[in-house]
């Protein structure tokens, strides 16, 4: 059975939305995705969502009675997991059409869950005592080791932000659109050496939703799920096996490429979760697009920029487009737009797109291979 993304939409706006509660963001995204799919809530019998408010509340608020629920919450990659799990459920006959929603008041914190971990948690005992202040001071901690072992330079790290801003400058919905240089990156505030502000993701409000179903039930030109993979590594970054490569990136990517039976040459477009500037570098290498230590030069040479041979993070990414806290939904949305030929910074001739999602600090990962035609 061919499983497809039959509907995909974001909230009317992303960015700063203090008039929207977290639940509202979910519901607005859900309505937009249903309209996009040409379906109604009565066509939907499965729901997947993460965090506050969770699948029960979202389903109830929409007036849905689901036959299948998934509350997988493994950080910003969760929505890629949801797509994979929904496909499995649909193929198994557990449900027919799944609504996946995301909404997060990451910036305004309206109706949002509380942050924080107990002092007796793993994080509370073995990382928080050392003055960690969230992802900017922990997700980033692998970079110096990577730089020492591969020779990645500070300039090359900054070039990631520069390249993504080139895409964002073509996207009216991106929060930051002014072109920047390496010098601009260096001139921005040091958040956590070696990371400057422009090498760290945004914090925004917003949401998105997807409709996953069988090809037969889709009403509009479908986006096929050709393959997927998921994996996890360590719940705390200090226990990551090797700071220069993500095991979860590698394993989820290998699984997705194998199921889709594709090679790297088949890939027209790529989205890699970019919470910080080093993450696309790891992603390019761990997915096998370039060799070890080559990603920094690859990006700096413009291969991922507009006109390059491997367009990457074409919405501007978490660094320039939007980042609610769980960016994976927006990476999927941009892949769908590119495959439909509807993206703001449309790449000509995109037939196959790969999405790599990250959750936590290299804690979880999932990869999706999406296409607008069957192989």
């Amino acid at each position: 059975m061919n499983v497809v993304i039959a509907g995909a939409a974001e909230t009317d706006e992303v960015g700063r939305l203090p008039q929207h509660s977290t639940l509202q963001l979910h519901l607005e995204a859900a309505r937009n995705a249903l309209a996009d799919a040409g379906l109604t809530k009565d066509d939907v019998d499965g729901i997947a969502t993460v965090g506050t408010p969770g699948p029960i509340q979202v389903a109830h608020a929409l007036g849905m009675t689901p036959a299948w629920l998934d509350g997988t919450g493994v950080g910003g990659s969760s929505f890629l997991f949801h797509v994979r799990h929904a496909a499995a459920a649909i193929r198994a006959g557990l449900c027919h059409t799944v609504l996946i929603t995301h909404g997060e008041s990451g910036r305004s914190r309206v109706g949002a869950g509380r942050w924080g971990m107990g002092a007796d948690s793993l994080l509370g005992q073995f990382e928080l005592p050392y003055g960690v202040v969230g992802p900017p001071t922990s997700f980033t901690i692998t970079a110096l080791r990577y730089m020492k072992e591969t020779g990645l330079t500070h300039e090359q790290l900054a070039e990631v932000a520069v390249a993504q801003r080139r895409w964002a400058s073509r996207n009216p919905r991106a929060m930051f659109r002014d072109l920047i240089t390496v010098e601009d990156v260096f001139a921005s505030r040091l958040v956590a050496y070696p990371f400057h502000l422009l090498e760290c993701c945004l914090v925004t409000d917003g949401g998105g939703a997807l409709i996953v179903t069988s090809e037969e039930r889709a009403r509009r030109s479908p986006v096929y799920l050709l393959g997927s993979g998921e994996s996890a590594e360590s719940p705390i970054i200090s226990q990551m096996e090797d700071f220069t490569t993500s095991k979860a990136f590698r394993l989820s990517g290998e699984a997705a490429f194998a199921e889709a039976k594709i090679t790297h040459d088949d890939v027209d477009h790529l989205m890699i979760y970019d919470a910080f500037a080093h993450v696309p570098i790891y992603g390019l290498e761990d997915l096998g697009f370039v060799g070890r230590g080559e990603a920094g030069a690859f990006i700096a040479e413009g291969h991922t920029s507009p006109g390059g041979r491997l367009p990457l993070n074409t919405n501007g990414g978490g660094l320039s487009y939007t980042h609610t806290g769980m960016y994976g939904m927006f990476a999927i949305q941009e892949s769908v737009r590119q495959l439909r030929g509807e993206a703001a910074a449309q790449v000509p001739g995109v037939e196959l797109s790969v999405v790599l999602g990250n959750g936590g600090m290299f804690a979880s990962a999932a990869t999706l291979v999406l296409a607008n035609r069957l192989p």
Partner: protein
Amino acid sequence: MKPAPKPTPETQPFWDGTAAGELRIQRCQSCERHYFYPRPSCPHCGSDQVEWVRASGRATLYSYVINHRPAPGFEDAGPYAIAVVELEEGVRMMTNIVGVENVPEKLPLDMELQVVFERRGDVSVPLFEPAGEPR
């Protein structure tokens, strides 16, 4: 006040160790490998025949960031390194680097370190300083 960890039953021996001025980690009696964080069975081979041992306290600097936006309790510290060190026994842990100015020039990766302990309320946390430097 800097954040203080709260022990759980399986981590209590670690925190008893730091209170006594010792860095204690676990070692598997089946595959003879060390591991960290504290767990009731070996993550390498699955054996539950594990023991607590005293680590040498010697380590090298694996990676770090220098945080410019201090956490509560760290306001007076200035920009400070949040580091991951690799113990001589082969396991890694997060820590802070003390006894040296926390600037990139003074913190080359792989520099040799040794453990010291800092009291935080009821517990002591392991920190690391350059090895062989005067205190």
